């Protein structure tokens, strides 16, 4: 399944928001990015999408208290998705007519009485011409027993160890919310997947299942295909540890590698784990005509702040890696990194203004803006419309430039500088040469 569009009404800071995610040619897979400042509502959009994908039951358990979701002064709020489904991968439970190409899935919050403090959290009622309720969402993505409908969501703190005991309860459950715990709870870790890998390994010891064995080999091959720097790859899986080895053949347990590597491993392993549970180990991998092993299952993957802990060169390369190795996944990600934003696929870049910027509303980038960003350098992107920095120099340097202007203005007006000012002026002038004369801006 894919999300065709999202519509928010009165959800937190958004009075209304409507984003369509269809790419030219009717595709949905690939890289869709939300950029915006801190508190601009990126996480709100991602979490809203997640709640509508898993429905009010699992969503209610996950999101905890429903207070705070309704915009101040309003009495109701809603998120409605148009979901496109795939007859090959997704199945409906119970009797009922299957929808056409796509259907709506939505959740809403409302206050029964205006004086109520805590809103109700329910599914959005959708009826056909005969006033019969349409239960596509209930029978499909919201049902824990229906086949397919893969989706998962990851919060900005993706780590391998140490869930709080409360968060533990969610992530080890078999319910839909287990694939979204970190998106909603910062106290949750992604430890399940490493355990799963070890359990699978143990299972091959018990009964040499060739299917599981092949799957494990596939996981190793996939994660070893240029994901981590320095040629790092999974070298061994034992009952107690998953080991990682770098190009120099130094071997470490996965828990001991650096934050960025661990966090990426944890996320991608969890993704594979989830896809494997939903579609089965057999359907997981495919080999492209060039011989590359990829995971060719569809679904929706939400990642908040995908760039966390990654060096800029890796930020630049990770979107491409994910797109190549999960070619059918619709990635919805938020980011503070121009390098991540530049990787957006067509119709896949959405700009959220700062709350303080009252004139602006959340909107897709225009074609011209998008083209400029995808072809551009990080420099242009960060100074451009999507990030809006006036300068990338430090405040210190900016102050110094202003001080230079002050002294130079005095000098310009023919006013004699005091001895100390004169010294400062001469010093600053040297530094101005440094600030403005080097490559690559003018390269002289």
């Amino acid at each position: 399944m894919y999300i065709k569009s999202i519509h928010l009404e009165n959800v937190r800071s958004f009075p209304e928001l409507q984003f369509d995610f269809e790419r030219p040619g009717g595709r949905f897979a690939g890289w869709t990015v939300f950029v915006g400042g801190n508190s601009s509502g990126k996480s709100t959009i991602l979490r809203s999408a997640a709640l509508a994908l898993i429905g009010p039951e699992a969503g209610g358990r996950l999101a905890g208290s429903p207070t705070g979701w309704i915009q101040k002064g309003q009495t109701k709020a809603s998120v409605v998705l148009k979901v496109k489904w795939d007859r090959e991968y997704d199945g409906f439970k119970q009797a009922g007519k299957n929808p056409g190409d796509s259907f709506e899935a939505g959740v809403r919050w409302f206050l029964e009485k205006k004086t109520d403090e805590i809103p109700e959290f329910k599914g959005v009622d959708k009826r056909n011409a005969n006033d019969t309720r349409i239960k596509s969402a209930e029978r499909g993505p919201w049902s824990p027993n229906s086949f397919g409908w893969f989706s998962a969501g990851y919060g900005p703190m993706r780590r391998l160890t140490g869930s709080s005991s409360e968060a533990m309860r969610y992530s080890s459950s078999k319910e839909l919310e287990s694939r979204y715990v970190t998106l909603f709870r910062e106290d949750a870790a992604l430890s399940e997947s490493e355990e799963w890998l070890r359990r699978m390994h143990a299972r091959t010891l018990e009964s040499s299942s060739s299917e599981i064995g092949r799957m494990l080999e596939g996981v190793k091959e996939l994660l070893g295909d240029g994901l981590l720097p320095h040629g790092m790859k999974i070298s061994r899986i034992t009952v107690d540890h998953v080991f990682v080895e770098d190009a120099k053949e130094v071997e470490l347990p996965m828990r001991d590698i650096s934050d960025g590597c661990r966090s990426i491993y944890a996320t991608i392993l969890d993704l594979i784990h989830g896809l494997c549970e939903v579609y089965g180990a057999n359907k997981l991998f495919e080999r492209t005509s060039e011989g590359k092993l990829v995971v060719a299952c569809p679904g929706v993957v939400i990642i908040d702040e995908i760039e966390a802990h990654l060096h800029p060169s890796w930020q630049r390369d990770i979107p491409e890696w994910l797109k190549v190795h999960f070619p059918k996944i619709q990635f919805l990600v938020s980011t503070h990194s121009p390098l991540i934003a530049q990787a957006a696929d067509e119709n896949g870049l959405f700009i959220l203004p700062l709350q303080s910027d009252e004139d602006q509303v959340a909107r897709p980038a225009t074609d011209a803006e998008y083209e400029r960003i995808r072809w551009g350098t990080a420099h242009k992107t960060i100074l451009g419309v999507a990030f809006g920095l006036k300068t990338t120099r430090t405040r210190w340097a900016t102050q110094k430039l202003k001080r230079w202007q002050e002294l130079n203005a005095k000098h310009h007006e023919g006013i004699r500088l005091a001895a100390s000012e004169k010294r400062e002026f001469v010093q600053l002038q040297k530094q101005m040469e440094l600030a403005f004369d080097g490559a690559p801006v003018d390269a002289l």
Partner: protein
Amino acid sequence: MRTLPSRKPLGEKLLSKLAAETAAITGSADAKTEAATRYGRARKAKWFEPVVKTLCELAGPGRRCMFCSGSESSDVEHYRPKAVHPELAMEWENYLWSCTPCNRGKSNRFPPETEDGGLLINPLDENVWDFFFIDDYGLLTPRFDSEAGVPDERAVSTRDLLSLNREAVHESRLMRLRNLRQQVTDTFGLLKQRKLSKGEARERLETWKLEPWQPDVASYFLSGPGKDRSPFKEFLAAI
């Protein structure tokens, strides 16, 4: 900022159309909303096009922003915000031509208490070189107010509100300055060697003035007080 031609009078018909709109706004119970609606409608209307056209002519080749002289897409700008002064929403004398970043810097912060425009220099109706100069690094610099003993306050607040030295604009201005300096030096060399006549050098000068890339640089160094700086001074004295 740069020197712009003085504001042309609009035709009678246009002015009376604008005046009618203004009357409708000031006569309305909710002038602010009325102003937003009427201006929004006008901006898309055919009759308003000559207003925009005249404004663009004032902005000159390349229709560069009247504040920063940068190249980002520009639009009609209310010097005094229509949200604060709905009665000026349809007032020709209140229109400028400005880019999105300048507009954004201004619109949220141009404070109503400075109704005399104190904080913001009007590039069309004031003499910008009374307030700014461009330094050797392309920085648009507030002039020093000798009497007050500080840099001119309005210039400083204008520079800071609109971020007139923001990285994208400043890099562009610096490059134009270096480019222009080289062209002038080259041409001056030819002039001295009598390879070029004064008339021909003057022709070149006119071309540079019309070049749409960061026209503030040409405005300052070829037509403004920057004429006193080397190599512009020597070159201009010679032709």
